[in-house]
């Protein structure tokens, strides 16, 4: 009896174990069924203050069955490009969507690494976007990305100083030089103007604004190099003179990144500054600025009164990898990321300038960023940098040759001529 009773107990235990195991198995299976959500890997800017995660949560809530995993790209823009390049080059399917700078779409489109989005986006959907960002994602007649943020170069000026000396906001670069010299003679320790003129992408942005405003350009409509023109030479001469002849730029300008240019302006030692809109909030924060309430914003000066003002277009878009296993879902997310709701969240949370026209009349955004109303014309007329899959190399040639003029290795005319020739060599023209 005892023996059997024991056996019975053992059997009970075993049965219990089996039931428990079965139960566990069912739980596990059901979990894994539930987890059969599609997971998109989104290579993005860093998380910063959490707004990006809020946008993703909002997407996941409205799109059940799709989860988005944010992978942080490096801080430095060139490193971002290197990383994305490496992943796409190896045809890695682990990256579904990624952030793209305004100059990158031709690179990826020409390499055949990204999915064209024409089939997914209706014209109505594209209609609300500003012309600049749309131009940036369009290449060879196709749309390659969804813009989610725009940017444009602006002229910051010291309202109080101009008022004190009874000067107007300069309309041309010559006026800017004249006003700078006038104020520099009358104010202790003040310099005229600064921008990001170091040998990096920032210089190309600044340079193009000068070149365009004088009527020059890098490529014509047919894609031929037309950089070497009297207009371009005049533009580069003006820049060089601002450093070496008129002496209105702070010392060391040829190694100024955007932060280096902001620092003297924020500490009240500059009359003018060429900066992106992101400088505005910082200039109005008393913790790191001594010019709170004294700053005005205007369109950048023109080359001559019969030209117009040009701003270099900046901004970011999302693009879908051709090697993604979940393109449909990835496009869904791209559309959401560039959609009104997400752009509004980014505007409120990260002060990103919206790439959609309708958001410029949104009362919440206007309350948070009243300045975008005044800046709107600049965003509309912002001009894209020369479009080429070889852009990075073209840009590098422009930087190096322009700097050679800055440090007086060459005259402006020689620098422009050499840059023109080197770009032609590069493109085989």
């Amino acid at each position, binding site marked *: 009896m005892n023996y059997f009773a024991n056996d019975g107990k053992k059997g009970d235990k075993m049965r219990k174990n089996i039931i428990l195991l079965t139960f566990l198995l069912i739980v596990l299976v059901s979990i894994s069924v539930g987890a059969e959500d599609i997971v998109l890997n989104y290579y993005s800017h860093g998380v910063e203050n959490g707004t990006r995660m809020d946008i993703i949560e909002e997407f996941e809530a409205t799109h059940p069955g799709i989860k988005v995993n944010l992978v942080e790209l490096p801080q430095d823009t060139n490193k971002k490009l290197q990383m994305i390049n490496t992943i796409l080059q190896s045809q890695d399917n682990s990256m579904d969507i990624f952030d793209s700078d305004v100059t990158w779409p031709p690179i990826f489109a*020409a*390499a055949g690494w990204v999915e064209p989005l024409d089939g997914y986006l209706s014209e109505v959907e594209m209609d609300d976007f500003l012309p600049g960002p749309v131009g940036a994602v369009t290449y060879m007649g196709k749309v390659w990305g969804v813009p989610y943020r725009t940017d444009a170069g602006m002229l910051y000026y010291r309202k109080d100083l101009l008022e004190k000396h009874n000067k107007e906001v300069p309309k041309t670069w010559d006026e800017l030089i004249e006003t700078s010299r006038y104020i520099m003679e009358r104010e202790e320790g003040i310099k005229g103007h600064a921008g990001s003129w170091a040998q990096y992408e920032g210089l190309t942005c600044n340079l193009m604004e000068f070149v365009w405003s004088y009527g020059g350009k890098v490529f014509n409509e047919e894609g031929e190099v037309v950089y070497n023109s009297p207009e371009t030479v005049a533009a580069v001469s003006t820049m060089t003179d601002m450093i070496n002849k008129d002496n209105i730029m702070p*010392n*060391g300008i040829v190694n100024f990144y955007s932060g280096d240019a902001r620092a003297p302006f924020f500490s009240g030692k500059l009359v003018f500054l060429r900066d992106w809109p992101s400088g505005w909030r910082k200039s109005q924060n008393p913790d790191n600025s001594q010019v709170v309430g004294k700053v005005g914003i205007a369109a950048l000066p023109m080359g001559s009164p019969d030209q117009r003002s040009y701003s270099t277009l900046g901004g970011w878009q999302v693009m879908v990898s051709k090697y993604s296993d979940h393109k449909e879902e990835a496009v869904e997310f791209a559309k959401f990321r560039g959609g009104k709701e997400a752009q509004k969240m980014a505007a409120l949370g990260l002060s990103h300038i919206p790439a959609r026209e309708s958001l410029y009349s949104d009362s919440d955004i206007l309350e948070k960023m009243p300045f975008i109303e005044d800046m709107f014309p600049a965003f509309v007329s912002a001009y894209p940098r020369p479009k080429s899959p*070889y852009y990075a190399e073209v840009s590098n040639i422009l930087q190096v040759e322009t700097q050679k003029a800055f440090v007086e290795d060459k005259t402006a005319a020689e620098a422009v001529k050499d840059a023109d020739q080197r770009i032609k060599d590069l493109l085989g023209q």
Partner: protein
Amino acid sequence: MKSKDKMGYLFIIPSLILIFALILYPVFNTLYLSFFNYRVQTMALGKTFVGLRNFIKIFNDETFFKSLKFTLLFTVVAVSMETIIGMIFANIMNRKLPGQGIIRTSVLIPWAIPTIISGLMWKFMYSQQYGIINHIFLKLQFIKEAIPWLSDSFVAVIAVIIADVWKTTPYMSLLILSGLQTIPIQLYEAAAIDGANRKDIFLKITLPLIKPVLSVAILFRVLATFRIYDLIAVLTSGGPANATQSLSLYTIKTYFDFGNIGYGAALATVTFIISLLISLLFLDSLKSKLE
């Protein structure tokens, strides 16, 4: 014996795999790619074999020679200064001084700071607007106008060298110190009895005895300095007007930023060959160490 041999090979397999995957494969793949015209922009069209054309292009490439010239100048000047100053520091650290622990620690601090951080630090200090170096020099009236540390083509080269010497001298002095400590004190005592002067002691005892350590240290530094990238990327990104563009910086820009994989690989190969030649120069002194 035989099975012992087999065991031996078995044990080195993991490291062999790592060497193949992480060193040999990339080196040979780079070499292979350097014979092709291969660009990110035309990747869809594949790569075309161009033989040695990339290398011929290098020898007609003004930017390459400018970068090579800068890199060689930078390497020679920086490593010489590091060696001389390192020797002085090592001698100080080798003495019986009160507070030697503090001296040794403080000499080592620059080496412990990550290059990117020390690069940023120097960048702030060099600034013409708010830099402490110009500030002090101006206050002491050494100079009338702020020195354009990073914005003048010539001064920028000096500025980059100073930052590198500051950062890597500790490494040099540490290695030399280890060499100095292996010299038996009796040799110095004997020399003192024979009436040798300090110059003779240094040239005939110290220098020959630390020569193996010194040549290894110099070799390491020459190779590392020749491939300098991070410090320059932070300080000047090669500017002004390419005056401080090192070979590595040019190679990385060409390969990754411009997407010119074939030509970038050729540049990397040339850099690799030059580094290899430099190491061969040191082969003799390395041998003497083994004997």
